[in-house]
């Protein structure tokens, strides 16, 4: 075991000792060289110069409208940072800063704690400093070792529009939210990260790359100049984001919808580009930038109209009669309807012991399919929808994208519900529901709920005969086609002819959507969706075409009453805006 004797040749001992002594001697020489021989040089350097790395924040990319007009800009602000390891008297320094800026020391201290990253890294203690505050800080610079200010690009929004639900907002990275960020290593506390909407979806593109520059500072922390030892690395600004929005149209719609709980969507069906997206009530987009007070916040979150809710993608509504087209198309495709077949509407339809009413109490009289769509006759559809099973009807709805996400490039959206037989079984039990439910559903009432953005996709599918490009807000998003290919060309043509009647014929429910511009044809459908929260929701979906240029529109006014009365005129103003002047047409159809 331990019996192996130790027989080390002396030569080997000498060699190992020699190596060690040489290493140690080289250390002594090196230290002598630096500490004694070059002492004066280093002493001066230590007295005069200190090098500090200052991060240069990269401005985020701008967000532009379809013609390059700036929607979201950057605005240079100044922030005050404190380097914990350099501050000599924290208490006194904070008092001076408080005196210079008027910011309470408790706020400074809270920020100091919140953004603390380490002894030698700057922690942000105040932001949005004015030039006045800065110059007062500069006066006291000598007493404020370790406190510096740097430029910080803040988001700045166009005054013309809110568009808050689309643009989203940026949030400051702090200890609480850094956990939820995907690529953590790219962020430090105090950085901005896109948190909602386009700012979130296109975060990687909008965020630039930070730079750094090294300055020499004297013993008081005053900057002397650029350091010659290290090269400056310039920040690389983020890439600009060109959206498909038309800022003038968006502004016009936001103005006319003010005070209504409503959604308006406008798009180009041929490309899937969104021209305008408004959800009201909304909020000012700089709600999340400046210092929002607790009161302002309280007011927004306690508002019963829920301004933070993005009704375009998360509002769930019964679609009302706008879905009559799906019922009609399914019947046509399956050959279960005769176009000349007439059904008498006397205002009420009886099924078993229940009565189903038409919206027109006195009844429409004799109706064929064309008139039934144009006048939105319910009784006609009560009759014919029974020729479909609930699953046939639900499948048709699903094909048009209801019950699924549209995958528009906004951070998130709701799916909605299209009830089929298994859904109804779960909801009411195997025998708990009947044909009566189908009658209701086919009129877009009951369990069926959709989002406005799904309606936009639906109307675009109708315009494009089933193969409409995916909806998108940012210009160069790859276009995936969402296609409905079950229906014959004839069916598409016929249903659009009927929809044309809804707006252009004098008896059509949607005729208020027609601004009467020569050469402009408008087709559409109104909807009046009963709901338990009061007045019915008013819908209008439709599209206008002039010189082969098409625009589709979705209007929803919550509790707005009759679709033809409340929603259709709004669509009319949009068509008027876009098609009445060549200037606006050029702006909308540019690119």
């Amino acid at each position: 075991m331990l019996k192996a004797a130790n027989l080390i040749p002396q030569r080997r001992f000498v060699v190992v000792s020699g190596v060690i002594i040489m290493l140690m001697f080289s250390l002594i020489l090196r230290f002598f060289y630096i500490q004694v021989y070059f002492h004066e040089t280093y002493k001066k350097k230590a007295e005069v110069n200190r090098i500090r790395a200052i991060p240069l924040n990269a401005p985020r990319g701008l967000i532009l409208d379809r013609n390059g007009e700036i929607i979201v800009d950057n605005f240079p602000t100044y922030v005050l940072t404190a380097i914990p390891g350099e501050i000599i008297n924290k208490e006194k320094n904070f008092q001076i800063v408080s005196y210079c800026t008027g910011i309470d020391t408790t706020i400074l201290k809270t920020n100091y704690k919140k953004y603390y990253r380490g002894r030698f890294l700057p922690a942000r203690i105040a932001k949005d400093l004015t030039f006045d505050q800065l110059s007062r800080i500069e006066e006291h610079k000598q007493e404020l070792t370790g406190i510096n200010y740097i430029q910080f690009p803040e988001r700045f929004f166009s005054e013309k529009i809110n568009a808050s639900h689309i643009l989203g907002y940026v949030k400051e990275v702090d200890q609480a939210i850094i956990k939820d960020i995907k690529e953590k290593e790219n962020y430090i506390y105090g950085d901005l990260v896109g948190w909602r909407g386009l700012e979130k979806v296109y975060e990687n593109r909008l965020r630039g790359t930070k730079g750094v520059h090294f300055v020499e500072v004297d013993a008081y922390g005053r900057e002397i100049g650029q350091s010659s030892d290290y090269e400056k690395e310039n920040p690389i600004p983020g890439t600009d984001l060109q959206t498909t929005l038309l800022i003038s149209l968006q502004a016009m719609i936001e103005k006319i919808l003010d005070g209504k709980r409503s959604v308006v969507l406008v798009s180009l069906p041929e490309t899937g580009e969104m021209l305008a997206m408004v959800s009201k009530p909304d909020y000012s987009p700089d709600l999340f930038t400046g210092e929002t007070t607790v009161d302002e916040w309280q007011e927004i979150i306690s508002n019963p109209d829920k301004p933070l809710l993005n009704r375009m993608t998360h509002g769930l509504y019964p679609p009302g009669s706008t879905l009559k087209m799906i019922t009609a198309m399914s019947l046509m495709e399956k050959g279960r309807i005769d176009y000349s077949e007439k059904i008498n509407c006397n205002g009420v339809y009886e099924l078993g012991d229940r009565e189903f009413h038409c919206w027109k109490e006195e009844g429409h009289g004799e109706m064929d399919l064309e008139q039934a769509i144009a006048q939105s006759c319910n009784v006609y559809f009560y009759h014919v929808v029974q020729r479909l099973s609930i699953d046939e009807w639900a499948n048709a709805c699903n094909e048009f994208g209801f019950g699924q996400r549209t995958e528009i490039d906004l951070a998130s959206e709701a799916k909605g519900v299209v009830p089929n037989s298994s859904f109804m079984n779960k909801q009411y039990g195997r025998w708990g529901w009947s044909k009566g439910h189908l009658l209701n559903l086919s009129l877009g009432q009951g369990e069926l709920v959709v989002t406005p953005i799904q309606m936009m996709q639906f109307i675009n599918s109708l315009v494009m005969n089933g193969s409409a490009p995916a909806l998108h807000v940012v210009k160069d998003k790859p276009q995936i086609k969402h296609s409905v290919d079950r229906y014959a060309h004839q069916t598409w043509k016929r249903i659009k002819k009927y929809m044309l009647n809804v707006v252009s014929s004098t008896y059509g429910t949607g005729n208020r959507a027609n601004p009467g511009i020569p050469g402009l044809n408008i087709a559409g459908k109104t909807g009046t969706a009963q709901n338990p929260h009061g007045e019915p929701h008013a819908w209008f979906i439709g599209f206008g075409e002039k010189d082969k240029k098409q625009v589709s529109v979705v209007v929803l006014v919550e509790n707005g009453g009759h679709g033809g009365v409340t929603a259709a005129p709004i669509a009319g103003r949009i068509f008027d805006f876009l098609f009445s002047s060549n200037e606006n047409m050029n702006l909308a159809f540019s690119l």
Partner: protein
Amino acid sequence: MIQLFFQKFKESPTSLIAIALFLTGVGLITLKSINTGQEGTLFQLSFFKELFFLIPALVAFIFVFFIPRHTIHRYIYGFYGFMIILILLPFFGNEIASTYRWIDIGLPFGFQPSEFAKWIMVIALARYLSDHNLEMNHFSASIIPIIMVIIPAGIVLNQPDLGSAIIILVPLLPMLYWVGARPFHLFLIVAPMVSILTAFHWISFAIWAILMIYIIYKAKPNLVFSISTFFGNIFLGLLSPILWGMLREYQQKRILTLFNPEIDPLGAAYQIIQSKTAIGAGGLFGKGWGQGTQTHLKFLPVQESDFIISVIGEEFGFFAIFILITLFSFFIMRTLRLAYNVDDRFSSLVLVGLGTIFTAHVFVNFAMTVGMIPVKGLPLPFVSYGGSFLLSSFIMVALIMNLSIDPKDY
């Protein structure tokens, strides 16, 4: 029992523990200076934390000093296996500072198992090399020792902790040399690494190739072996830039930062200049305790652990540095002298290995603060702040003192 301890203690080279305690004192004084002006509760200040860590370190010292050498000898392979598991454990825990060096033991501080791997490795190697009456004239005798160090070194390198990996690897060469391995065989071990590193510049590669021819010619192995050694290394060298090119950019960056942290502009970029300025400004006698402006005002990251020499250099001057290096040299030479005189080969090898660990730590730490070598995260024994390493260092002193005395009575 206590008497036995004192008896054994008296016979041991007590100057070693005296130096160790003195150096720890220097470290504490420096930490106290760094702490002035810092805020925090008692247990946030490194001075008190280090003072607190000294208690388990001294307890461990007494305990290890008392373990009979045959017990150490008998159980060391078991410890070796246990150590491999320990250094793998951090990979299952949380990342700390994007590395896997630490084990969370539920206390306010972590535990760094790679510190213990260093001396466990040395003892295991000493047992292998002393147990097997090896024909060190044959290269094959070195194969198993190489494997024994490569495994833990590889794991630690992945944590990633290049400094500790080097410390685990380094004792192998002197220990093999100590038991009589032929220098040419040591050359064979080192050659592939040098071939890979020199291959990135053709002049250095050419010089290396000529040097190889000279060494192989002097060693005179048989012709086939000579040729295959030479061309094997050349081939390896030529291959390495190609393999490098196959790595992805982030992988290359990671490797480069491992060898040269200065690539990271906001991290260690001006660390060396800062450190050199602080040390140079200290002059012959320093600025005095607590007076180092560089230390107290400047960016001197890790000044409490890896860069504590910058603080000492600034505040106490060349005078103190000279004393420290002399003390360390004395400590290491004394260990080496004991290794030469001790009766059995196992103890001798352990002493040489531990001496090498101390030498590597001391040299790398001093050298990096003055920019002689790229920054490596290696603390200075006894002086630098850090619980695991303080404990480990005192255990190593206990091992040296324990194994260097005549084994017959204890």
